[in-house]
């Protein structure tokens, strides 16, 4: 008897914590199929008797979710891919090419970059972006996102490349490959697992980024999902049922990706922070 209580107690506490995490999501999910604020107020916790799917239709149109969604998607993917390309070239040069002290100096520079609190750099970046005349275009986000991810990406990829045995490229050199060929044909294919991890981390970071996206773009058509959602909230503050549908739209893709790739995501995100 005491044994079962002892074994069960941690689960009770943990399930309690689980409820604290999951209940807000359920609350929003249930609210999203209720008719209006009044029916949320009358029956806050339960599933409504009749499900109102109209909120989803209205939110999709009113909140322009489709526009924001695809803006976010292409900005995040493009910026992550280019960061990985640039950072992997850098990582290849400093780990596999023989340039003695330059390798160390350049690599330490990237480590330094991990220590810089990037929020505080927002204002100078704003000026750089406006001097490049790309303010209020998607490049205003894409270029800073690419740059911002480079130190982390380069460090993780360099650590991975360093662990590859040097016999690999000795054989490749024998076969007559030059450095770019070794990079593209030998090292990149071998580094794909690490690239997937950093891609996920960079993608999530860009997908969720709010500050730059909020202040560097004014045109409504260009906005990304987080900013669009905040603006939608401010406009339809009074219609909580519709707003809940909007939240579901923006949370759902992340939850689905997380359900499929949770191990990779957890590994990547925590690795990123410890290295930082």
């Amino acid at each position, binding site marked *: 008897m005491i044994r079962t209580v002892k074994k069960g107690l*941690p*689960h009770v506490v*943990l399930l309690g914590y*689980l409820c604290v*995490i*999951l*209940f*807000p*999501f359920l*609350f929003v999910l249930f*609210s999203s199929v209720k008719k209006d*604020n009044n029916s*949320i*107020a009358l029956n806050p916790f339960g599933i409504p008797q009749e499900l109102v799917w109209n909120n989803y239709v209205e939110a999709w149109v009113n909140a322009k979710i489709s526009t924001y969604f695809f803006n976010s998607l292409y900005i995040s993917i493009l910026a992550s891919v280019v960061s990985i390309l640039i*950072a992997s*070239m*850098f990582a290849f*040069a400093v780990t596999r*090419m023989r*340039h003695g002290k*330059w390798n160390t100096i*350049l690599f330490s520079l*990237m480590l330094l*970059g991990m220590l810089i*609190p990037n*929020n*505080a*750099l*927002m*204002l*100078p970046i*704003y000026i*750089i972006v406006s001097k490049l005349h790309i303010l209020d275009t998607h490049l205003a986000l894409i270029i800073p996102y690419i*740059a911002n991810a*480079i130190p982390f990406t*380069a460090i993780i990829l360099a650590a991975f490349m360093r662990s590859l045995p040097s016999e690999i*490229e000795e054989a490749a*050199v024998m076969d007559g490959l030059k*450095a*770019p060929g070794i990079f593209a044909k030998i090292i990149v294919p071998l580094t794909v697992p690490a690239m997937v991890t950093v891609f996920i981390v960079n993608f999530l970071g860009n997908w*969720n980024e*709010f*500050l730059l996206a*909020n*202040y560097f773009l004014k045109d409504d058509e260009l906005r990304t999902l*987080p900013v669009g*959602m*905040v603006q939608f*909230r401010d406009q339809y503050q009074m219609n909580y049922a519709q*707003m809940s549908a909007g*939240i579901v739209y*923006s*949370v759902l893709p*992340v939850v689905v990706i*997380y359900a499929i790739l*949770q191990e990779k995501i*957890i590994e990547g*995100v*925590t690795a990123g922070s410890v290295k*930082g």
Partner: protein
Amino acid sequence: MNKALRNPLVFILFVIPALVLFLMFFIYPIFSSLYYSLTSWNGVSETVKYTGFDNYTKALGDERFWVSVKNNGWFILFSIFIQVPLIVFFSLLIANVKKLKGLYKTAVFMPSIMSTAVIGILWGFIYEPNIGLFNNILGLFGIEPVYWLSDERFAMLSILITNAWQWTGFYIVMVLAAILAIPSELEEAAAIDGATGFQRATRITLPLIVPIISVVIMLSIAGAMKAADIVIVMTKGGPAGSTEVMATYMIKYAITNFKYGYGNTIAVLIFVFTLVVTVLYQLLFARRSERIEY
């Protein structure tokens, strides 16, 4: 063999793109911030007027600035004294259960991969005075509605709770990984010596995870100094500026009010304060937590 990998031209071409972006978006901004922090530039005009340390004296003499510093302080204190104990407690619990370990880990981690903006919106709804979740629950006990985000007494606390809700699970997973990396012989030996589960947790596991707890605290400090989007989304710094943090104070002046020079002064101060807090923490507490080898 070495010739192919010693080609300096290829080396330069490979490092240049990363280097240029790095210098442009990390190194140059630091010096640019330092420079403009000494001017009264508005961000647009052709002429830049040098004003010495005027901005600094102004910032350090501004009561509102200190309110924002204090709020960053609340973020740090809340994470160290409320979140860290919870993180350790829950990680120990998850590490010691046999079933459902994976489920707990996956579920508690989930909020940390979501957009802070969307989390802010979601929690804004939960705090809504009339139909929100919190007041509904309190209503069951007959407690009058609380205006969580528009009452100065509760606004900051509400933000801190939301922030903790989002990030606690993230740190739990980090600490959990450290606990699971401890060789099981240590626990087994203690169990043979007759240590209870509680004793094993406090005498064996806890001392061994001190280094990772130290990392968690460092990350919390860094996160606390950067906090901005959650405040912007939930309260916009209000009511009456009571939830302003340094980063939102900086944005308010530099971008909304065109006081670019002054904004950069705040950016430099954020840098300096982050450095001071980190160094203080390292000197006072982190010395003992050197690396543990098994």
